[in-house]
């Protein structure tokens, strides 16, 4: 439904040019919810704005619903207003001089995708119902709360039944609790109407919970594309490993047959075939994959450690364990009895380690 290939874009900045996008390739299938995830300055918003036609890329092709909308060498550039899209902005961009109804009806009455007059009211009503704002149609836009503005923005983006929906950090201006509620609702709405969605966020939890597909970006490049579970379970690079979820990182040197020497001691793990022995690597393991036992257990994969801090979160507890001078973060169920100062056995399952050159 959306196809992007070889997208490049540079901006003139105060100190020379900034290469915002360095060759982005992306495909989003019909009805798919695709999240662009990355830190600020990674190029995710620029990519979205190029798809919307709000930025003109220097090179690369963009196709929306089988229609080529951007291709510099062939001189094709379809302006934003002629692309079959809907967009929700970070600031919501609700027009302050109109009512809720007028805001939502605007694309239907003034746009390229306008509909016969007698259908407008019904379409707006349906859109309002979709976002559960029935009854607020005649409110002036300036009298809405943040959450309501967000819903109006959503309704306005979807009222023309566009092929694709673009969202630029739509939840970042809401408070934490509302953000989580809206996240669930957003997923429900897009699923219900089956619209293809491209969504930008810097919040990894948001990306994992919303996306059918997550693209992790950094420095104008896509580092990894995959289903949320895939990206979380098998981060392809150190950057992805660190950016998506928590990781314990330890540097070490490869010795033969699946053993890495590190400050922690000898670590057994599955090594990729192309890493020769003697090579420096970074090992990574998630806090929830580190095992911890009060009992003293001697095995090749366990070491003695001491609890340094305990961060109780209710449903879980994060513990810092010091073993061989290395501090590891361990995630345990909230009801663990381990206390600060206590000794414990740290168990590091060989198949949970990620190895990065």
């Amino acid at each position: 439904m959306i196809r992007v290939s070889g997208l490049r874009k540079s901006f003139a900045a105060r100190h020379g040019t900034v290469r915002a996008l360095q060759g982005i390739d992306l495909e989003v299938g019909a009805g798919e919810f695709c999240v662009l995830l990355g830190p600020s300055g990674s190029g995710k918003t620029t990519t979205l704005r190029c798809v919307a036609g709000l930025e003109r890329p220097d090179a690369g092709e963009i196709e929306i619903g089988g229609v080529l909308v951007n291709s510099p060498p062939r001189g094709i550039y379809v302006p934003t207003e002629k692309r079959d899209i809907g967009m929700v902005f970070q600031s919501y961009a609700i027009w302050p001089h109109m009512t809720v109804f007028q805001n939502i009806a605007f694309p239907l009455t003034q746009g390229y995708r306008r509909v016969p007059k007698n259908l407008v009211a019904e379409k707006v009503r349906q859109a309002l119902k979709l976002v559960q704002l029935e009854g607020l149609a005649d409110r002036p836009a300036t009298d809405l709360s943040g959450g309501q503005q967000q819903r109006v923005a959503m309704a306005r983006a979807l009222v023309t039944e566009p092929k694709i929906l673009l969202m630029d950090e739509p939840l970042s201006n809401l408070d934490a609790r509302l953000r989580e509620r809206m996240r669930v609702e957003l997923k429900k709405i897009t699923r219900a109407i089956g619209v293809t969605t491209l969504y930008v966020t810097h919040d990894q939890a948001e990306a994992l919970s919303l996306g059918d597909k997550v693209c992790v970006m950094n420095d104008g490049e896509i580092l990894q594309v995959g289903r949320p579970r895939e990206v979380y379970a098998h981060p392809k690079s150190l950057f992805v490993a660190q950016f998506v979820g928590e990781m314990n990182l330890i540097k070490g040197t490869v010795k033969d047959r699946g053993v890495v020497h590190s400050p922690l001691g000898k670590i057994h793990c599955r090594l990729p075939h192309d890493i020769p022995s003697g090579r420096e690597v970074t090992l990574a393991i998630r806090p929830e994959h580190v095992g911890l036992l009060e009992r003293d257990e001697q095995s090749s994969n366990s070491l003695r450690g001491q609890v340094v801090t305990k961060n109780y979160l209710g449903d879980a507890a994060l513990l810092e364990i010091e073993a061989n001078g290395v501090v590891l973060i361990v995630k345990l169920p909230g009801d663990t009895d381990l206390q600060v100062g206590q000794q414990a056995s740290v168990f590091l399952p060989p198949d949970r380690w990620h190895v990065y050159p």
Partner: protein
Amino acid sequence: MKAESLRGAVALRETVGRIRQYGVTAFAGFLFVALSALVGVPIGMVVLMSLRTGFPGEATPLTLENFVEVYSDSGTYEILFNTLAFAFGSVAVALLFTVPLVWLLMRTDIPLKKTIYVLLTVGILIPVFLRTIAWILLLSPRIGLINQWLQKIFALDSPPLSLYNLTGMAFIQGISFVPGAFFMLAAAYRAMDPALEEAAYTGGVSKLRTFLKINIPITLPAIAGVMVYLFMTAIAVFEVPAIVGLPARILVLSSLIYQATTPSTGLPSYGIAGAYGAMMLLLGLVLAALYVRLVKQGKKYTVITGRGYRPREIALGRWKWPALAFVFLYLAIEVFIPFLVLLWASLLPYLQLPSASALASLTLKHYLAIPQHTGALPFINTIILMFAVPTATMVLSVLVSWVVVRTQVKFRGVLDTLAFVPHAVPGILLAVGLAYLGLAYRDIFPLYGTIFIIVLAHTINWIAYGTRTTNSVMIQVHRELEEAGKVAGASTPRVLVRIVIPLIAAGIFNSWIWIGLLSYREVTMALTLFTRKNVVISTVVWQFWGSGWIPEVSALGVVLILFALFVVGVLRFAFARVGEVGSAA
């Protein structure tokens, strides 16, 4: 024992707290009384003189005679019509140039943006009366260079052009309004969230329709606000109506009031001036109220944006050169031509078209003769004005803003409104009111004829501008910055000296400079309060012009402009690090 002393300490602290709170309220009350006197007394004097006949100070009974005389005269309505026509005309001319300028500089990739900004600032520094004089030197039917030239080329019997009509007046005034209007509108435009525009594009709405249905309606309160503000100012201005209007016998309210109080022959009639003044005051207050409402409306429309990005600049392509030509046409009318005409006239024995003989007779003698004509007094007085006015205005403004922005005093809103009132009171009325006060109550107000009465008039007039800038400067210093200082253990004075003042210093200094320069080029109030003793440079220029000393006017005018440019230039250079010093916005 211990508990008792503890209780005593708590009680003491409570008392101190209460005193402090009362102290703030009392201080705010004192400011309120002082400000009421400063703003209210001159206005009261205008009302009082409108109800009296005879000389200032003559204890005549109060009467409505002046009003009857003024409003039964059909000439009054002609003057009112002139005033409104002049105001409408000049606002129309100003918008004609301002709106395209704002659009070109804010939204397109027009080259030389920085230069254009600087030149617009320079435009503010050239006094309106000098620009008007320069254009008279070009377009006067009798001596105008352009007329002379056209007559020579086309062998015409009579001069084809004339500035001496309402259109000419409105044109010169409108041109002079542009830089101020530009900076006001540009600020409003900058506050608009670009996503509002982009949301329309993504909704499938074309660029033209978006401009008509989104951009225009959203910026409309700002444009309307600027229009009302300019209209209010156009009713109050005096320089163009005096220099162009008086010789052409086109009277408006301001020039009429000036004529009534300082007639060239006969006795001054403060009563008649007061009756006209009352009408002017009413117009001013109504327009000011409308302006405040529009600004409030406009604020509702500016939303907090998610990000600092600006929308893509529209590429002008081959329209770049026509656009640049438009901008420089304006700048030529506003800055270049007036300056060059004054420079040319100042270097010649008498005004003439450029020719070989004219070039041969170029001379600096008019510059060298300036001290001989003026003496030292106007320069001393001007320097007093340039230091005393901004200092007094900024001290008062900082104190008022501190109460308005930083305290919880109940009547702080009223104080803020009171400080805004001088915006609505035409400078000429303020000066006439003060003149009347000085003449009628010489014993309790012995300032008439001194430079300090001009200092007072300027200070009152610029409190409105001063408090607007100090308000915004103070709001920018977040309260928590101050509180963090206190939490760190610094005392209130120390917090003020080490945290607040360094943060607001640049902004305060910037408006100090601007008010100094406004005082330096101001002529209306200085002229209304003029005596032999309190002459300043701008009134000297005015007198020279009245005597027909064209080369001398031009020479002094050139010096006046160059000095202002020098001050701004030096400060910009010296304070480049601080940034905003010397910028008009």
